[in-house]
């Protein structure tokens, strides 16, 4: 009986070895290990054996069964692996075809620039203030030292709604409003970004609507050198560490002294080239020390308080920084234009 079991094992292992697919393997399993298979039969005939033989044969039968099962499993795994490999091979795709696009939007270029400016000034302790776009003549002009017959009003021909209301021509009225809000006894440190409007015919360099970011700092003992220091810090952070600034005298009714700020040309580093019209410098913003009449009108005593203000145009900055050649691009919203500036 033991010999028979040994023979069965050899026979089964040979058949397993010879099986060339899962089906043949299954037939081997059923043939040897099934309920009607020879091993079961052997085990069934155990009753005839002596008490000494029984455990020996039983153990052997189990060993044989285990060996066959193990061989079956091993062979099966080989077949399965082969089958899987076949299947994976069949599943191969062209990995060079394009992926399914994930659509991400992005901010408008002007928003990106305004946001960057906001964040730089927030970092220097400024708050961001907003105000109405339809403004009163008082806040747009008079509170900024531009009385009704002031010749400088010519500089910014405006869209009036009524005699007393107009589309703001700059965001400076927000400064006047904020100073009013702080009632002349608290420092003001703010920037005010927003849309402004002027009576211009739209062309490559003019737009009846555009964007401004203005800033104001009023406190005790604010000096003109502080204006220079703050603008320098801004310019270096925004345009690059290697850029230099220079201030030139200028005129704005609401500041005295007034300045215009140039930054060194990034192409020629101040030597002069066609980008900077041979001057080595590019005009970026205007500013100055807040005019005492503006402080007075807002309730700040110019003997105690002083301050500086500045203003810049994000469109112009975008045109300089990114080479945008037509201001109308910002407002026609050609998708191809918008998408160009969505990259990091």
């Amino acid at each position, binding site marked *: 009986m033991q010999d028979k079991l040994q023979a069965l094992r050899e026979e089964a292992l040979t058949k397993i070895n010879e099986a060339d697919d899962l089906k043949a393997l299954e037939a081997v399993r059923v043939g040897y290990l099934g309920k009607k298979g020879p091993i079961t039969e052997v085990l069934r005939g155990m009753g005839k054996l002596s008490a000494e033989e029984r455990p020996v044969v039983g153990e052997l039968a189990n060993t044989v069964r285990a060996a066959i099962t193990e061989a079956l499993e091993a062979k099966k795994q080989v077949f399965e692996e082969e089958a899987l490999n076949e299947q994976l091979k069949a599943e191969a795709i062209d990995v060079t075809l394009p992926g399914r696009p994930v659509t991400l939007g992005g901010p408008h270029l002007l928003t990106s620039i305004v946001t960057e400016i906001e964040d730089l000034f927030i970092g220097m302790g400024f708050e*961001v203030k907003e105000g109405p776009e339809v403004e009163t003549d008082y806040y747009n002009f008079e509170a900024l030292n531009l009385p009704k017959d002031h010749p400088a009003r010519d500089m910014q021909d405006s869209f009036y709604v009524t005699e007393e209301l107009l589309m703001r021509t700059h965001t400076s009225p927000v400064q006047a409003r904020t100073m009013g809000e702080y009632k002349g006894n608290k420092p003001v440190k703010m920037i005010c970004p927003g849309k402004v409007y002027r009576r211009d015919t739209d062309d490559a360099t003019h737009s009846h609507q555009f964007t401004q970011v203005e800033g104001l700092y009023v406190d005790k003992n604010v000096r003109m050198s502080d204006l220079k220091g703050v603008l320098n810090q801004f310019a270096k952070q925004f345009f690059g560490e290697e850029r230099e600034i220079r201030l030139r005298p200028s005129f704005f009714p609401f500041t005295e002294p007034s300045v215009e700020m140039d930054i060194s040309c990034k192409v020629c580093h101040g030597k002069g080239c066609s980008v900077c019209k041979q001057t080595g410098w590019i005009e970026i913003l205007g500013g100055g020390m807040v005019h005492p009449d503006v402080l007075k009108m807002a309730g700040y005593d110019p003997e105690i308080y002083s301050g500086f203000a500045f203003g810049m145009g994000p469109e112009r900055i975008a045109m300089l920084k990114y080479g945008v050649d037509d201001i109308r691009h910002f407002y026609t919203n050609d998708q191809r234009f918008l998408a160009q500036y969505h990259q990091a």
Partner: protein
Amino acid sequence: MLVSLNWLKQYVDLGRETPESLADKITKTGIEVEGIEYVSEQLDHVVVGYVESCQKHPDADKLNVTKVNVGDEVLQIVCGAPNVAEGQHVVVAKVGAVLPGNFKIKQAKLRGVESNGMICSLQELGIKEQYVPKDLADGIFVFTESVQVGRDVTEYLNLDDAILELGLTPNRSDALSMLGVAYEVAAILNEEVILPDETYTTTDEQATERVSVKVEATDDNPYYGAFVAKNVTIKSAPLWMRNYLMAAGIRPINNVVDITNYVLLEYGQPLHAFDLDKFGSDQIVVRRAADNKTFVTLDEETRTLSDQHLVITNGQAPQALAGVMGGFESEVSATTTTVLLEAAYFDGKRVRQAVKDHGLRSESSTRFEKGVDPNRVKRAGYRALHLLEKYADAKICVGVSEYDALDYSEKDVVITTERINDRLGTTITDQDIAIILDKLQFTYDQDKSTFTVHVPTRRQDITIFEDMLEEVARIYGYDHLDYTLPEGGQFAGKLTERQALKRFIKQVMEGAGLSEAITYSLTTTERATTLVAPDIKTQAVSPVRLAMPMSEEHSTLRLSLLPELLAVASYNQARKEKDLALYEVGTVFVSDEKEITKQPKELNRLAGILNGQWLTHPFQQEHKAVDFYVAKGIVETLVDRLGLDVTFRQAEIDGMHPGRTAEVYHNDQSIGFIGQVHPTLAKSYDLKAVYVFDLDLEYLYDHVDLEPNFNHIPRFPSMSRDIALVMDEMVPSGDVLATIKQAAGEHLYSLHVFDVYQGEHLPVGKKSLAFNLRYLDPSRTLTDDEVEASYEKVLAAVKSTHGAVLRA
């Protein structure tokens, strides 16, 4: 202001400054030099020639053959100019000369006759056509004074001059004169200013004997001076004067007119010359014009006057529009012999009114509008008389007939070294300040660190300490200021919640695949009132219109962002950019008045537009056009991120598809809408299926709390039930959802529609909706019985509320 450097050199020594170095210094000190232009190029072989003979060309009617003496030789030159004649002194470009525009002069044969050079016009030498005197415009230039034959013409014609173009800010009207620029340059270079000659001889006759002056409008005209120059000869002004005028952009006319223009540029004081014989009386009366009176100005235009305009009259009729333009009637002409010279101070506001009403801006009006120097008014008259005597053979009457109530006083401004340093952040000394004041040629009294500055009247812009602060700072040099950071108290800069929320909302939009657009606030009245959200419509009485729009295109403030976004979609589609997903955050302008008297409310909106394909991946056959649910999904994502629970209700809104539009509600407050634009409206933009949304950001700002609340991650599993219901097709799924939510009890954790079916397996007019309900108790595992009980309640509720039954 155009500044000829050759002219400027008459008043201030420019030393070794080149036009470029000088321009740089002027710009850095306060007046921006916007450009440098050269009158001509370096010209060689261009000399004075004398036309010894001039004969018709044998074979060409329009050509002449001339013999021209150029000093060392006599050249035969064929000339086509109509005004060439024997005995003229002319400009000859000899063979080898290169004229502006790289025009090389070569030996040539013209219709068989040899020509060795060219007789030149001013234009050919590089002078701009519009400045060339009219009588010389169509021909060669002819010298009218004695010149040396054979000499280089550069100096005679001022061809080596450089012109600085000054961009003057409104406060620096003092630099609207050569003398003003001279003071500025003298301060920069630390030089003296050389003043022009104002002397002349007089006849016995008094000016007052010839003409009287009466000023009625004394506020408008605090000074009026009338000088009389007799026996004048009208001819060309001297060449140097004409050269300077041309360099300054003024076309020479005749000696008298040129002299008044020359002095205007030199002193910044406008003068006017009348022909006294044609003036119509011997009295000058300055007054406001009568309403509707007409008057013909120099340019032969008839002007209708009003009592807002100041006029110079002969007692009867206007002879000049004060400070703006003279009259045609008493204009100086070739026959003039007696000149009435006006030197006056007119109030800027009055002049500006006339400029505005007549659309007539002149060199004169510009200066009066900005304010002239009181101390130069009369002196400009003297200077003109000096020139009239010299270049128009005039005999000058003694004195001036005048009205004088002008304030000639200098204003005092007190500055202290300490205050200057406090404001500038500098450490300059008393000595430094004294030097700066000297450079500016300002007089002052000094008491240690206190300076009482007597500001000269030419600097009308300096009235307060800060003005002087600027003068000191700019001469000291802005470059020499330190870079400091404010020493004041420290602030923490931070966005407000509203500003932070706006940024967050934009980020959600961009994450959802929409790009930001920025459109115009001003649009057409029609667009301004199109697609207005219901919550806006109830507040807006009428759109806000500009009083005087430049065009209908930008005439009215928008009540909705959507029409301009539709225009953007249309613009893109026309450029083959059909697939579009844009959003805009912007302001609408809402007024509750019919006639605007106060500022409109400015309300922030969020609007979006979707056109074309939402998603395409062609080789996988994935094409998903935008539709209502795409738009809704974006809005749902946003409100979900903002933690708001909103509902959508079928709505009818003008301009929107009546069956595909929903209003968005939060707690029964309408906060916007979404849907398909009505095909008729879409078509007017050349668009087809276009979807939009519009939300009230003000409401969102006020109702969102950005502080995150921590929720425990559930430790116990949720239990899920599906339920398919059949009901009338008209029952909105949102209503069924609401019913389920209410009936399901506290353990309902989430609820979704996952299938909608209508078709052959259901009776006509019925639809099936399938919902997935998930139950959860964070503290324990729910039992089947509990879930089952809830499920039964739901079934009962939908049956009684919507007549919905379980799908078989």
